[in-house]
């Protein structure tokens, strides 16, 4: 009898550990950064003209994606958000913020800086053109040859020499680091992490590369939220 009781207690303890561990994982990333508030979308930086935005700036619904250019699921999720923005013209705008997961994709941070160089040299349109092309050609999982970065710049119509100079300077490293801090504050523990902002400010955080149907439903629900 006591043996069964011990086994039962052991089982419940294991279950509690698993559930507790899963919930704790949500805040662990934020806790790793001492300057970050506990992971919560409410503390996320608001969308401002500083952001890279695809779609109308006046769109009632904003989608903020925290992405890693070497994450295979971010690559898979990219066309989903392209489709959403195309199918909700004037209603949905997409903001991209960097969250390179350095531990498993050491090359991603420099690639994030490369997209910022594209923005510096060619504006918002070139940022998106560069990001689209990068996701298109990267094999993911840190397998993109760094020599491809200036080639992508040339491909999207940027001056290669100026791009290389920008990338080597590391001048956008701080900007990328700020985005990473924001991702941690927003509660991201992996990528892609997407926050849908409704017109009334209500936030809906989507974890992972969820199907188009899921993102569309969340956008529809967000559009129902009136100011």
């Amino acid at each position: 009898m006591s043996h069964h009781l011990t086994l039962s207690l052991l089982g419940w303890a294991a279950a509690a550990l698993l559930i507790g561990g899963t919930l704790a994982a949500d805040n662990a990333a934020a806790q790793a950064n001492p300057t970050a508030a506990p992971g919560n979308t409410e503390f996320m930086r608001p969308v401002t003209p500083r952001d890279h935005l695809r779609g109308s700036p006046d769109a009632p619904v904003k989608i903020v994606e925290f992405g890693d250019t070497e994450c295979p699921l971010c690559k898979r999720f990219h066309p989903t958000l392209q489709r959403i923005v195309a199918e909700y013209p004037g209603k949905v705008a997409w903001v991209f913020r960097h969250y390179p997961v350095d531990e498993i994709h050491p090359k991603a941070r420099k690639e994030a800086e490369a997209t910022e160089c594209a923005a510096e040299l060619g504006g918002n349109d070139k940022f998106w053109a560069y990001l689209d092309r990068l996701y298109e050609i990267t094999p993911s999982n840190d397998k993109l040859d760094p020599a491809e970065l200036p080639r992508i710049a040339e491909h999207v119509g940027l001056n290669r020499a100026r791009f290389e100079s920008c990338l080597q300077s590391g001048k956008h490293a701080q900007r990328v680091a700020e985005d990473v801090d924001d991702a941690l504050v927003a509660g991201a523990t992996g990528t892609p992490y997407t926050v849908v902002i409704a017109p009334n400010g209500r936030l809906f955080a989507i974890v992972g590369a969820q199907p188009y149907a899921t993102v569309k439903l969340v956008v529809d629900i967000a559009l129902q939220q009136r100011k």
Partner: protein
Amino acid sequence: MDKPHPIHTMVEAAKEVFARPAYLGLAALIGLAAFVAQLWLPNYRLLGAVFATPEAAFALKAQLLASLLGGLFTNFDAVAAFSTVAVPLLFGIDVAMIVYFLRRRRAQLPRGEIAAGIGGAASGAIAAGCAACGSFLLITILSFLGATGALALLPLRGGELGLLSMALLLLSIFLIARRIVAPAVCEIRPHGNTPALKEQP
């Protein structure tokens, strides 16, 4: 006498257990619950926010629950997707067989079976998610240990844990299957002054 093949042992035990619809139902229920939990739990905040929204119709909320199941095809690589289906299935079978054994034989279960079962389920829960995108529990555990970089050295980038989970659950199923198919006998202890009779499943 030749020992029966492990697969034969497991099949024979499964035939005995799952010939009873109640145990088949139990395995299906537990397997299904574990499967959907893997797909819904990572988005519990999203579900909480949507279900707390009065403007959204219930039909939309129900559609959202169903659509998240499609994440199996978009949010996992091939190995992770396979683990996501196989681990809950094996877990359901394991639990149903353990319950059957305990109820039929009214015997105590040695710790080996329990340990393998819990180990399989726990490693399956830790492995759930995408290792390549840093979105699973193992990343958090490894980051506490300062060993996240070790994942990059593994050929499946952490997907190995899902395979380990399946191996542990199969071991647990085999151990319990061996006990289920073994005939109940009385063991005679010849030594000592007071020979003891003990039922040995």
